[in-house]
């Protein structure tokens, strides 16, 4: 196969960027999309040009490192598929493919197709865990958890933190990412003690990082390589409301006592 790619090239976060056009020959249908880009980079290096920078690591759809907007869709045209899992057989011979970075205010471009997603780590630091020190755990079977509950928690926990939900959202919202973690920990009894504080703190951090709010487009679910359901955003809102209400009550009580 012969493929024409229009790729976003940008030298740095504050530099202007533009699409550049390249032709890649000898593309095989079983190649992954990133292997096609590897081939392009080999050509560029041979010609003494600067290769296209893009992030990837596991190349089997689980680490969440890769993330490209391919023909306008985060992770490309296939459902439930990361950029690294996408195969060239889904494109026609001679096709022109546009490749851009994940764009959002919360994800500044580092270079070319590489973006900075460290905002996700900072959101997690606000409560994406259960506060338990190593060595203080009771026997694992001491607390039974219904299979249905564990399965639902696992559905939410499958998030790979790639950021496709943000890239797909017209508001640049991270609600699905935050909702997935809040839902996982709210469903499990171990997470109960901190659930009210957690939802409020994580949402506040999401706002502070410049991510937008959710207005029910559900583009995030469609783009999610793990098909994480927008139902988790509903749970996030419920948790946030309860948490915000509890915080309000605490403040009122404090004011009454003054």
């Amino acid at each position, binding site marked *: 196969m012969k493929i024409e790619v229009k790729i976003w090239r940008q030298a740095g976060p504050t530099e202007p960027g533009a699409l550049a056009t390249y032709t890649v020959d000898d593309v095989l249908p079983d190649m992954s999309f990133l292997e096609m880009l590897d081939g392009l980079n080999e050509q560029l290096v041979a010609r003494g040009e600067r290769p296209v*920078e893009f992030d990837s690591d596991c190349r089997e759809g689980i680490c969440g490192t890769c993330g490209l907007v391919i023909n306008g869709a985060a992770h490309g045209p296939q459902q439930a598929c990361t950029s690294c899992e996408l195969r060239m057989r889904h494109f026609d011979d001679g096709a022109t493919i546009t490749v851009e970075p994940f764009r959002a205010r919360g994800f500044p471009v580092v270079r070319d197709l590489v973006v900075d997603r460290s905002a996700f780590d900072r959101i997690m630091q606000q409560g994406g865990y259960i506060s338990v020190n190593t060595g203080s755990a009771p026997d694992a079977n001491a607390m039974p958890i219904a299979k249905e509950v564990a399965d639902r928690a696992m559905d939410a926990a499958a998030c790979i933190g790639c950021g496709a939900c943000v890239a797909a959202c017209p508001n640049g919202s991270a609600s699905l990412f935050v909702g997935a973690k809040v839902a996982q920990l709210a469903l499990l009894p171990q997470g109960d003690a901190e659930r009210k504080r957690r939802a409020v703190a994580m949402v506040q951090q999401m706002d502070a990082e410049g991510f937008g709010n959710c207005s029910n487009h559900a583009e995030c679910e469609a783009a999610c390589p793990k098909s994480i359901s927008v139902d988790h955003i509903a749970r996030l809102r419920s948790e946030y409301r309860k948490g915000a209400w509890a915080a309000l009550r605490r403040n009122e009580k404090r004011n009454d006592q003054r």
Partner: protein
Amino acid sequence: MIAQSPLLDDRIPAGPIQHKWSEHKAGIKLVNPANKRKYTVIVVGTGLAGGAAAATLAELGYNVLSFCIQDSPRRAHSVAAQGGINAAKNYQNDGDSVWRLFYDTIKGGDFRAREANVYRLAELSAGIIDQCVAAGVPFAREYGGTLANRSFGGAQVSRTFYARGQTGQQLLLGAYGALMRQVAAGRVSLFPRREMLELVQVEGRARGIICRNLVTGAIEKYAADAVCMATGGYSTVFYLSTNAVNCNATAIWRCYKQGALFANPCFTQIHPTCLPQSGEGQSKLTLMSESLRNDGRVWVPKQKGDARPPQEIPEAERDYFLERRYPAFGNLAPRDIASRAAKAVCDDGFGVGSTGYSVYLDFAEATERLGADVMRERYGNLFAMYHEITGENPYQRPMRIYPAPHYTMGGLWVDYNLMTTIPGLYALGEANFSDHGANRLGASALMQGLADGYFILPATIADYLADHRPDGLGTDHEAFTTAAATVEERTRHLLGVNGKQSVRDFHWELGRIMWEQVGMARNEKGLRQAITDIRTLRADYWRNVKVGSADTDLNKNLEFAGRVADFLELGELMARDALERVESCGGHFREEFQTADGEAVRDDPNFSHVAAWQHTAEDKVPTRHTEPLDFEYVELTQRSYK
């Protein structure tokens, strides 16, 4: 009699094996809680071992600096482990115990691991599951709400805990959460997108590291009271492996060249259930969890070159070769045995697929017995991944699989405290050599990473730190300046070659040599040839490699170039180690040493030891040291899974 090298003091405590760890812990020196924050510990790598260690050390009160090459600690390659984690909980009441897990692991490793280490691992396994559940890891459960288990290769009990096909991901996110909590508490400083390029020693102790900031290209210096390497394994030396494309050996290789001994480099594991190679442009091989062998049956046609679609080949014309050769363990034979058996049938011409180098993994029988829904629940994500990659639907036709390099049992030599031969330098998880002998059992890597990170290192490091009070050493010390200059010189050298061949071409060629001569089956002639070929290739690399753009900021090709330069040295050491180990054991199969029916033949009197290599000088043959392995509790037998 195998000589005990004076460099290799294993510090294994005396006393009965059941009490070694508890008595050792009781005797370890402690650091006063008020003093812990005055100590700085560097942890390189944020996988299960590194992430768990960094979080736990911070919980204890130490000041931790955590480094990773990924853009977030959550992406470390532990995330890709699929099948599960072993623990001797005996929740199934099927006869499991700490002793049995210990025995299975020693036997699975073909009697080339330390008894004391493996016993401790088995002993700690149950606490790992408790810790992970408390941290919110959504393990699979039964309807009654208790934890579910599955079976795995090399064991006759069901002791593997799992979270669908994403166990590594879920365990890693648990450790990552704990790490993030400590970042928020101000006790861990995170340094993502950093690659460690040098170890800094002051007065013979590990005191810091030099890193390249992968975004700005700046060479950065960090000082500490101790340094922990949790940087994973080196399977990408084969170029095509199941590892992530950024996995590399550079960090541990720097430690080796600084004087840390490298143990059993030739012990590498070839995983039996991976997707077969399809083309030249391929960047990696994808693993399909070994858990598939629970319900999948491995076979090839009885007739050579049978081109019929698999569904049309009648039962009587199929050779279920694992069930035939190993009736007791069948499709659950250990990884090294299953891999070699698949290679053997393909070498004999019975392989399937366009290249003739793959075998069928068939779920038809299990699907009929359990129903498609159960199969979807157990393996849904794996089946979907297979479908996307190959374009074939595994619900309808058998998968095609072939072995691929996966895990490296070898690594930095460590004592019972996980300290290397450099004082103050520790190695954890896959980066060390300690627990899996010559072959790792499935679902044991996650167990070892977390045992090292959550429980062992946080206890043993105090013993060292208590004797080495913080002295205010800063990165202005000349040792840091010298080390940083070495790193910069190496980068300049790489960029200055400006030859004709790409980094990838060299890596591909190295991988080909390694796979053919230092892969699943090895022999003296091939290993000698490999050493010559690698040396030639390495010399050519420094004359002929083209890194391309000379930019020293974000430049992934430059990162790869540095890693391949190190692989070209490591590959030679692996071949040398394989040549000197004149026996077959576990994943190290020397064709000269096998039984009539192709089983490995060990040489216990001469090779029941750890081989640890000491760097001498560039391009010189390193020195081989030995640590004898004494087996007090298990009887050495020929492994039999028949």
